[in-house]
């Protein structure tokens, strides 16, 4: 294949049909912006849900009748349970301190004695922060002699789990639909651009060009459109975020963060859209009869 000729034709395609190229690039840019904003929404909502999940802790209270000698062995057994990341000991004294901080009263003064039990504050490994694992760990904790009661925010954990499943599935469905829509939109726009070059394609076929030879300039054009569309979309996203943070202030970063990986991802998606759009569109015209 005459690579230089193919490249030249691919680039010249821009000059020969400027308007349709601009329309294709704008379509790719808009599609990428929608996909990018959706990805942003998904990532940020996911991380908010994750931060809720990260805050889930268990607290195992030690039987008041167990002596202080039992505290350490109990802690050892707790830490040996699979899924337990850490277990921090809270003595009776510390518990009364926490009570005082949270309720503003000294429990000693009210009751003349400290009724609060010592406990272990347990954090779980990330992959164990779900209702099933938490239930299993709860059971194992209960089986440890000297552990009186275990509390954790089961209802919240179950709610997060349920909602996050619905959220992920909804996002997956919307993401797939958006991607299909973007490919469809881009391929249709590129098809219109290729339609104006049907005569060239027919002539190519008549003089004996192979399918690959006919296809290549259009694919190169598609890739260039995808790349330019990607750059535009990336630039717009970056500029919008910068403008928004300028208007709202640095607090914006607490709510919405754009991971640096998003920009190359948008560029790569632009290339993929341009490539797929042109491959899908050119297929129809290559298959047509020549006369």
């Amino acid at each position, binding site marked *: 294949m005459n690579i230089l000729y193919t490249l030249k034709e691919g680039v010249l395609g821009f000059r*020969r049909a400027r308007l349709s190229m601009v329309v294709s690039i704008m379509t790719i840019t808009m599609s990428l912006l929608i996909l990018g904003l959706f990805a942003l929404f998904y990532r940020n909502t996911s991380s908010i849900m994750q931060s809720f999940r990260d805050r889930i802790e268990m607290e195992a209270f030690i039987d008041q009748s167990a002596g202080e000698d039992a505290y350490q062995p109990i802690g050892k057994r707790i830490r040996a349970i699979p899924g337990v990341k850490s277990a921090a000991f809270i003595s009776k004294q510390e518990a009364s301190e926490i009570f005082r901080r949270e309720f503003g009263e000294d429990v000693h003064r009210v009751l003349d004695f400290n009724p609060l039990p010592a406990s272990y504050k347990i954090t779980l490994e990330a992959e164990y922060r779900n209702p099933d694992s938490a239930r299993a760990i709860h059971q194992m904790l209960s089986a440890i002699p000297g552990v009186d009661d275990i509390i954790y925010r089961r209802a919240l954990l179950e709610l997060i789990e349920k909602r996050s499943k619905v959220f992920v599935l909804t996002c997956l469905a919307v993401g797939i639909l958006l991607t299909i829509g973007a490919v469809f939109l881009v391929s249709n726009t590129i098809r219109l651009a290729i339609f104006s070059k049907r005569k060239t394609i027919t002539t*190519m076929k*008549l003089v004996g060009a192979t399918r690959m030879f006919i296809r290549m300039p259009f694919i190169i054009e598609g890739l260039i459109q995808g790349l330019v569309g990607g750059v535009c979309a990336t630039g717009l996203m970056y500029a919008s975020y910068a403008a928004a943070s300028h208007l709202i202030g640095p607090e914006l970063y607490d709510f919405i963060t754009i991971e640096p990986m998003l920009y190359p991802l948008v560029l790569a998606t632009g290339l993929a859209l341009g490539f797929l759009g042109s491959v899908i569109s050119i297929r129809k015209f290559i298959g047509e009869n020549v006369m």
Partner: protein
Amino acid sequence: MVKLSDVSFTFDGQKIFDRAACEIHRGEFVSLVGSTGSGKTTLLRLLIMDLMPSTGTVTVGNYISQHVTRKQIPLLRRKLGIVFQDFKLLEDRSVYDNVAFALYVTNARASNIRKRVLHALAQVGLSHKTVSMPNNLSGGEQQRVAVARALVNDPFLLLADEPTGNLDPVTSQEILKLLKDINAEGMTVLMATHNYDLVRKAQGRIVQIKDRKLQEVQLKVK
């Protein structure tokens, strides 16, 4: 060189050819005649293997319709020159580029392209129009460019589908003369037309499409 054996072809439920047969030999000038819609263009499409016969065999050079693969069809077309009534020139390229286009797409050596294009343009008498754009040329000149493009790959068969259909009588004569000159140099030419005056002047063999068959005819001398 070209042989149609028992060729039947049906398009959209309508039978165009029914066991048609014909043979064209090297160096001949054959006029293909028939009324509008009789199947002249269909026959040319069968020869360039844009269409395949429902039954029977089309043989063009070494390519046989029954055995040809999709990848071989471009190779067949590189050995054919094709000229149309509507020229099929690319309006966004110069005369030179239109002719060179046929060489670029067939991966011709870059060093040969210029020489071959200029030679083809000289053959059709358009050496002075290399940089002109098709829209700035007359109909006759545009058809000459199309002939040059058809010739530049040095084909063994030139197919012309109503080559003078869009041209005035004087220009038509010029194009016919060009085709006859090319034929005189040894190229086989098949010209489809419904212009009997042109056929008479062509003085070659005449094949007529009638009742879905191909038959040899002799024109009555006026």
